[in-house]
């Protein structure tokens, strides 16, 4: 299935939990936050959120800001 991550399409073998996908893409251990289809996903839900084909993810981390 195809998941859009930060605007780029990524292939993922279905079915996949968000927690597995985050590990798979190499984000484990990074200070990140996630929005799934424009909704914020608390860290505590990563292990139960099942990704579907066509889902959109925003994965963000700290950056400089004014």
């Amino acid at each position, binding site marked *: 299935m195809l998941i859009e991550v*930060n*605007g780029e399409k990524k292939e993922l073998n279905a079915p996949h939990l968000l927690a597995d996908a985050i590990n798979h*893409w*190499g*984000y484990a251990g*990074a*200070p*990140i*936050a*996630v*929005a799934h289809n*424009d*909704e*914020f996903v*608390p*860290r505590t839900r990563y292990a139960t959120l099942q990704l579907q084909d066509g889902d959109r993810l*925003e*994965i*963000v*981390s*700290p*950056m*400089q*800001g*004014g």
Partner: protein
Amino acid sequence: MTAPIWEVGGHSLTSRLLLGTARYPSLAVLQQAIHASGAGVVTVSLRRESAEGRAGSQFWNTIKELGVQVLPNTAGCKTVKEAVTTAEMAREVFETAWLKLEVIGDDYTLQPHPFLLVEAAEQLCRRGFEVFPYTTEDLVVAERLIQAGCKILMPWGAPIGSGQGLNNPYALRVLRARYPEITLIVDAGIGKPSHAIAAMELGYDGVLVNTAVARATDPVQMGRAFGLAVEAGRLAYQAGAMPVQDLAEPSTPVTGTPFWHSSPGRNP
């Protein structure tokens, strides 16, 4: 250790300067500039992170080492939904309920969108955020933000990054007079320490500066200059400035000076 001089959003601070962290030549210069300025609050942001990249971790570790309070922003958000989702993500990553709420209404001036700003502030205050709304100097928008639950307002001095200073001192003065109990911080448009002094002399509680320090020839020294300016401006406000008058009044007593004449006269 300097004694706290200011309570804001549940935190005791030792400086009335808030510093942005963007646009510095390097992380090392940023770190030195924060230290030299004495700022106890720095603004931070969130950006898309690539799986390979670890820029976010490096930046975040640098800030954590400084032990300053962070104020995450919602820079770039143009809708209420974007701002609220970004705020929730920021609260989790930065582990603070403080939020500099930006909802931009115009791409050229980066003017805050007053209606969406109020709507987003209402939602975020209900969700337990300490909202620092980046707003214009508009008095009625300020009233609506306060009704939404904001205890802090951050009116702009001028457009972000413009360095113009205080474009509407009258309106800023009216805001201060109208809301003596609200924490007011001038955010955006400050270009020089004299602008920060002017804001503090109006009775503002603090000043938020980024580009003026980051893009100075020597950001570290400019950071120090802003730290001193904010302190000088606050002291001047508390000391009470003399009234302005049209005509001169001799500062040296004239009675008894050589060649003194008691009647007003003209030059021969």
